[in-house]
């Protein structure tokens, strides 16, 4: 590496306070400054509005006074702490459940020779294409104590007096949210399993350890950071989720912290955005602790990925006759996570109105809900908007995520922590609170982006960079420095090395992240609901309004069509990435 590039790669140039001018003479510095500038603007501009809003007593645009009353109203209320405890139990339960499912699935699909394991790998990805709102509704139709389909079948088959399951309960809430969170846990755990150095396991086997011994003494201890990372990330997601508690918890009068925010601030009459901002800032404090833990765990995963750039394949366990048992377990998960919700959505979309199916039902099946959505101009417009947001948004997000990952993993500059912090701040706010911050920030922005599709694009990119960052970091950590050094010694500069060496090697992680983001963007709801206009309406709010207008047939039909389009997007992305071949 020549002198200049050595400086570029290692020196904390932004922070090289002693030699500022020398630092700024390097193109790499400008790149880092630019990146911090973009991420800083995206993260801090709306966050600053949210902080400001939480400290004043009047809505945006109305002269007010500085006050701590919003914080007092939010946090001097004992009920808030009871609900935080419920949220805590819910968060631990749902994230724990999702991690267990993800661990079972990733172990079976990556580390064993169970038959059909490639199919089961899809089990963990496909639920991500179902909008969470529809998954929650499906489970209400399956497990409600009055006429939930599973309850009806079990009651009739076993002659039970009462329904065995009640989705309207804390365990029901944990179960449904856990299923929704599993794909992200799988993404983290599967990536760590794939990138694990097989040498340690092989050494253990050479020393006479059994397969189970290797799994319990080597594999799972090495996996601990990935498990904890998936757990903390999903914990934060669970305590900030609103859709599932609104549908599953409300009927049973179970309140969690996010439903309280909605009830007291966002959905109250009239809405109190200042109070919502105070709740959001309070929850940010808690979420950031877990984000810190998450970062610690993920950096440990990276330390354990002792890969040198040489090709390897993860050690595969021969389960013998137990491989069919492993496939059966994965099949059961496939049925619960994919088949049940899909069947309920399909039934709702082809019945004139959903009721518990009987033999007569088959005579009344209809395609009218599909005809409705296929003839509806609003649906086409929403598809156009969401496809634009999914493809362009995911691409921009992955570009920013890959640049950030490069700086945080491949360099030792001090600004790494700043970059990571910036990325996680908007994500650590609850979705509705962040949407209020974005609304305040951009309603009077000098560029006319409020109520256009561009504000949605900014919101999506701002909020979801951490997902892209996780996917791409797990790949970038495997790219050994010698490849870049070879490029540099052949005379390539930073941009050429990044474009011709680093970027192609990052491709698998890049596309894996792109897929996750594009499928999330195809049905994003909590930020969109505050920011869209009729012309820029995406699919998430459209699905929600079909739900509140009680048009469940068209809603389910639209959900199925969205899922099919997402599968198409995944297929195209996989074609370009060959990511499953890694």
């Amino acid at each position, binding site marked *: 590496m020549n002198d200049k590039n050595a400086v570029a790669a290692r020196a904390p140039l932004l922070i090289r306070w002693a030699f500022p001018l020398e630092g700024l003479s390097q193109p790499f510095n400008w790149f880092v400054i630019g990146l911090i500038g973009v991420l800083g603007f995206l993260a801090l501009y709306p966050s600053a509005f949210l902080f400001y809003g939480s400290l004043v007593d009047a809505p945006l645009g109305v002269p007010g006074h500085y006050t701590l009353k919003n914080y007092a109203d939010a946090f001097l209320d004992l009920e808030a702490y009871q609900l935080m405890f419920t949220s805590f139990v819910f968060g631990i339960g749902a994230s724990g459940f999702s991690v267990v499912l993800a661990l079972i699935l990733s172990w079976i699909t990556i580390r064993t020779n169970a038959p059909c394991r490639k199919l089961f790998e899809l089990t963990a990805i496909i639920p991500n294409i179902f909008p969470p709102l529809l998954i929650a509704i499906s489970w209400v139709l399956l497990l409600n104590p009055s006429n939930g389909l599973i309850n009806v079948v079990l009651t009739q088959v076993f002659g039970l007096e009462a329904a065995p399951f009640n989705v309207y309960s804390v365990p029901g809430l944990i179960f449904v949210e856990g299923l929704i969170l599993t794909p992200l846990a799988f993404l983290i755990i599967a990536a760590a399993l794939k990138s694990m150095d097989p040498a340690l396991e092989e050494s253990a086997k050479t020393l006479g350890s059994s397969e189970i011994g290797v799994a319990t003494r080597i594999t799972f201890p090495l996996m601990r950071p990935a498990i904890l990372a998936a757990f903390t990330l999903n914990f934060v997601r669970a305590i900030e989720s609103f859709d599932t508690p609104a549908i599953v918890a409300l009927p049973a009068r179970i309140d969690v912290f996010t439903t309280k925010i909605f009830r007291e601030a966002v959905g109250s009459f009239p809405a109190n955005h200042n109070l919502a901002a105070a709740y959001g800032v309070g929850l940010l404090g808690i979420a950031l602790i877990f984000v810190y833990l998450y970062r610690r765990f993920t950096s440990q995963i990276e330390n354990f990925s002792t890969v040198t750039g040489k090709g390897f394949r993860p050690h595969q366990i021969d389960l013998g006759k137990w491989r069919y048992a492993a496939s059966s377990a994965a099949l059961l998960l496939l049925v619960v996570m994919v088949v049940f919700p899909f069947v309920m959505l399909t039934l709702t979309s082809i019945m004139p109105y959903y009721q518990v199916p009987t033999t007569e039902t088959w005579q009344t099946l209809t395609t009218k809900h599909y005809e409705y959505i296929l003839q509806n101009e609003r649906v086409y417009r929403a598809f156009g908007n969401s496809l634009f947001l999914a493809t362009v948004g995911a691409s921009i997000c992955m570009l920013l995520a890959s640049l950030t990952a490069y700086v945080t993993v491949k360099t030792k500059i001090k600004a790494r922590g700043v970059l990571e912090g910036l990325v996680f701040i908007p994500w650590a706010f609850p979705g509705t609170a962040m949407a209020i911050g974005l609304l305040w920030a951009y309603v009077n922005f000098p560029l006319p982006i*409020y109520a256009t599709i561009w504000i949605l694009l900014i919101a999506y990119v701002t909020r979801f960079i951490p997902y892209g960052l996780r996917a791409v970091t797990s790949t970038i950590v495997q790219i050994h420095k010698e490849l870049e050094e070879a490029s540099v010694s052949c005379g390539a500069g930073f941009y050429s090395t990044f474009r011709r060496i680093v970027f192609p090697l990052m491709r698998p992680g890049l596309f894996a992240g792109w897929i996750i983001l594009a499928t999330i963007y195809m049905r994003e709801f909590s930020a969109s609901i505050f920011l869209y206009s009729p012309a820029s309406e995406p699919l998430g709010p459209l699905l929600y309004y079909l739900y509140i207008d009680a048009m469940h047939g068209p809603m389910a039909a639209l959900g199925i069509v969205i899922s099919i389009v997402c599968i198409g997007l995944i297929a195209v992305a996989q074609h370009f990435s060959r990511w499953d071949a890694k």
Partner: protein
Amino acid sequence: MSKRTMFLLGLIAALTLISVAAQSQDAKLLSAAKKEGGKAVAYGSLETETLEPVQKAFEKKTGIKVEYWRASGTKVMDRALSEFRAGRPLYDVVITNRNPMVLMKEAGLFTRYESASWKGFTPDVMDDFFGPAYRYNVFGILYNSKLIKPADVPKSLEDILKPQYKGKVVISDPTQHTTIIEWFANLHKIMGKERAEKFVRDLAAAKPLMVESFLPAARRAVTGETPIATGFLKWVYTFSKREGAPLDYLREPSYLGEGHFVALGSKAPHPNAGKAFLDFFLSREGVQMIAEEGEFVPLKGLGPKVPGSENWKVVEMDLLSGAEIKKKRNEYKKLFFGS
């Protein structure tokens, strides 16, 4: 020429002049609307399905596009207020129920626009500022007529609290749905104070299933999960028309109702397009299309299509101030959630 002939000729001439003036007024308005960009933006809680025929007919007739943002009355008010206070109102017209309309009017969001279409309505449905209530939402109890047999149909509001209906009733959550707060708070107008208060207390004690608003409640009645729901009586017609769903309603001596209004934004970005849309929306042609969707509109000959509606006695709910709604909400929160 007899006096009578002269009078008739004079009348015809006057009517022709008025009609020509009205047409030239319309043409002027439309031409101004097209110069503004040829579109009007409406925010409202009127169901999209109900507005759509009016929207399409207006667009076909005038060439002016209507963009409609639909949300609950509370959210419509929230968004319109946020934009207005920030100095960036994007709406030309707002359509929702009276309570949020009055609060938005008090905050200065609207300007009084006396549309020529106001003339078609009778004085009893007129508001000095907003003009006519173009529809009334009539509240009551809905039930799944396939699951509740005729002999078991509740005969009064109190009947839904009988042990046989335990676990079969769904209501919207009174801590987040303003309309049910208004309904509970106004029940005394049709039941008397004591009976109304006891009914609300007993309903809370019966622990009904709770959902976010009326339509998800009606949907649960249709699926049979909880066959009895609070809601708008018009859904007996709309659910039957759209899906063939078996909904019927509890016959009561009188029902509570609330008017819906439409108003022009005081800082509308497309005021002429907004006025043109408002004129059409409140015209007999527009209101008739809304009636066709099963709405209860106050124009002669356009009665609701729900069976038995010709005998309805509808009592208008009293307006609640923001403070009263907050007080009632806290009261119901204690009753229904115990805190």
